[in-house]
């Protein structure tokens, strides 16, 4: 699904990613943990093609194609999805209109029939039910005036609508209260399939105990310094990151 090789990237001339190697196969869930500022969001932004970030070295193959040469919209249409750490507000654009445009772009790219008004609403209401999405959020403008938690819910809802092959969730669990965390985790659970891959970025084990990753990676100063099973996450929760860094030669 995704193969990252020796990826280096910088912003404003400062190198942030310093040789990332990562392979994610269909159906797998990977988690990335790491201290603040280690480059987790940078990795996400580079993968979705944010123009401010310059890739200086390395390759990324997504679904057998060279990801880095594709414009952001093409990456999304091919099935790459990022739930942003801080999603922007778009006043005046209703969530439903926004998603209709996005969903139809993806369908069109895959040579499938676009959804007309009625069909789209039916499809959307199905997803609303599946995720217990409050309808009033969908009638509002994209993220406008949404609370932190509502923004995260809305990101997951967008993921459900777009049915991506690889979903990257950047701190989907930050700023959520206990119930909302369970809610969002449940939703992620429902969106897990045998073929869909996920990359979950988090600081907390709680989310991971719901989504049960196959692998946990630790990112530090722009490199993956350790990869392990789910138990690595608990060790980090107990002991922090220093002990891992100290182990490095």
């Amino acid at each position, binding site marked *: 699904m995704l193969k990252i090789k020796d990826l280096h990237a910088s912003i404003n001339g400062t190198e942030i990613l310093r040789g990332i190697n990562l392979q994610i196969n269909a159906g797998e869930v990977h988690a990335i943990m790491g201290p603040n500022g280690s480059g987790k969001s940078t990795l996400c932004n580079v993968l*979705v*093609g*944010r*123009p401010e970030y310059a890739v200086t070295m390395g390759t990324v193959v997504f679904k057998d194609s060279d990801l880095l040469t594709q*414009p*952001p*919209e093409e*990456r*999304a*249409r091919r099935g790459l999805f*990022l739930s*942003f750490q801080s*999603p*922007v*507000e*778009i*006043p*005046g*654009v209703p969530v439903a*209109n*926004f998603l209709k*445009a*996005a969903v139809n*772009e*993806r369908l069109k*790219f895959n040579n499938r029939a676009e959804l007309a008004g009625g069909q789209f609403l039916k499809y959307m209401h199905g997803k609303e039910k599946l995720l217990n999405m409050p309808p009033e959020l969908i009638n509002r*403008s*994209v993220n406008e005036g949404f609370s932190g938690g509502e923004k995260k819910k809305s990101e997951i809802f*967008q993921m459900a609508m*777009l049915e991506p092959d690889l979903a990257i969730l950047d701190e989907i669990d930050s700023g959520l209260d206990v119930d909302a965390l369970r809610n969002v985790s449940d939703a992620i659970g429902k969106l897990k399939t045998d073929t869909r891959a996920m990359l979950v970025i988090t600081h907390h084990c709680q989310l991971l105990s719901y989504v049960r990753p196959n692998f946990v990676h630790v990112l530090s100063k722009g490199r993956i310094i350790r990869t392990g099973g789910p138990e690595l996450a608990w060790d980090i929760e107990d002991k922090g990151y220093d002990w891992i860094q100290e182990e490095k030669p």
Partner: protein
Amino acid sequence: MSLEEKYRELFARGKKVLHGSAPALMNSLRQSALERFFESADFNDEKYRQISPLTALYPANDDLENIPPWRKTLRFRPIEGVRTVVVKNGQIVSDDCSFVRNYKITGLRQFIEQHRDIAKDYFANLTNKYETPLTALNTAFCNDGFVIYLPKTVQTFRPVYIYNITTVGFANYHNMIIAEKDTSVNICIRNIVNAPNNAIFNGVTEIFADSKSNVALTQLNDGYYANLYNSFLCRQAASSKTALCSVTFSGRQVINSFNMRLEGKYSETRLLGASFPSQGQQISHLSTVEHSGAGATSDQLFRNILSDNGIGVFNGRIHVGPRAAETVATQRNDNLLLSDDAKMFTKPDLVIDNDDVKCSHGATVGQPDSDALFYCRARGIAEHDARRLLAKAFITELLKKLNCKFASEHTAELIERWLDSYHY
């Protein structure tokens, strides 16, 4: 020949066409208005320089059907559920009579002739008091226009749709909306100039909103290569409400000016404006809101989307007089620049001579938000479509403030078409 001589020659020629059949009330004001025009107009200003002795006072392109295919969105379509009036070169050519009505829509000349006593209290009342060079020019050359007259307590339910097409090279129409006590009316004017390049359309609309009346007026302008000047002057009595909205899609040089006189206590006005200056067009909105009655409210929102090398101007002024306690006045001007060559000049202004007021004003000029654009792209929406989405959203915020359903839907439809035709 100097510019003044050109105007004088045109005026002399107009005497035959304009004066002969016009009512004395109109003719008596012409000569002095012309002189005041010469005194006040700055002839270095581009907007007065388009005139020539050859400028047509007669219809240049008389055929309503003869609208080029690329302008076919302008073509008249009857709309159900609204009273539709077609006005051509200042004269009413059709008025749909499919239902009973208790208020009048007539030509200006006819109104003056039939209701001399009413007309003399209103005609040129505001233009004389608050004259500008453009309204003086209008008074000098005025040939006709339309009048909507609502006698006391008449509440209209169907919106009035006026399809106003102008084909002459130099047009000076004077419209009046007279809303007596306890009346209400919703008006939507589609204002189209299908005339030769550099034609001048210089329209005046006087609005008289008596106590507890409610007047909503939306004007949708397409001037194409013509110069389009609209002067709205409005006097409001106690507890009257007005809502004026002006949307301009095209025009070589366009000036929409509003002069709102909130004289009565607790009167309210809302001014909305939108325009889309592109390709060498300059579109201005000038507003003056004078709060002289206590407890009055004014709310202004002007939003422009500028592209290519389009130029936009906003000059807004709120004045709160010494007797206007408890005034609430807001004024905003937001502008979206879709190109680096577009220019916006904005000058919101507030003068307050009273302590007991709540006022705010502000302006923004910006490009589409790059974070929002990227967010769209990351969801599969190409940059071009994302820009369109944001542009539409920008203008939708303004449409939400239009209370008349017909006017807001019609406006939304036209805006949609404009957005479709534009290459981002």
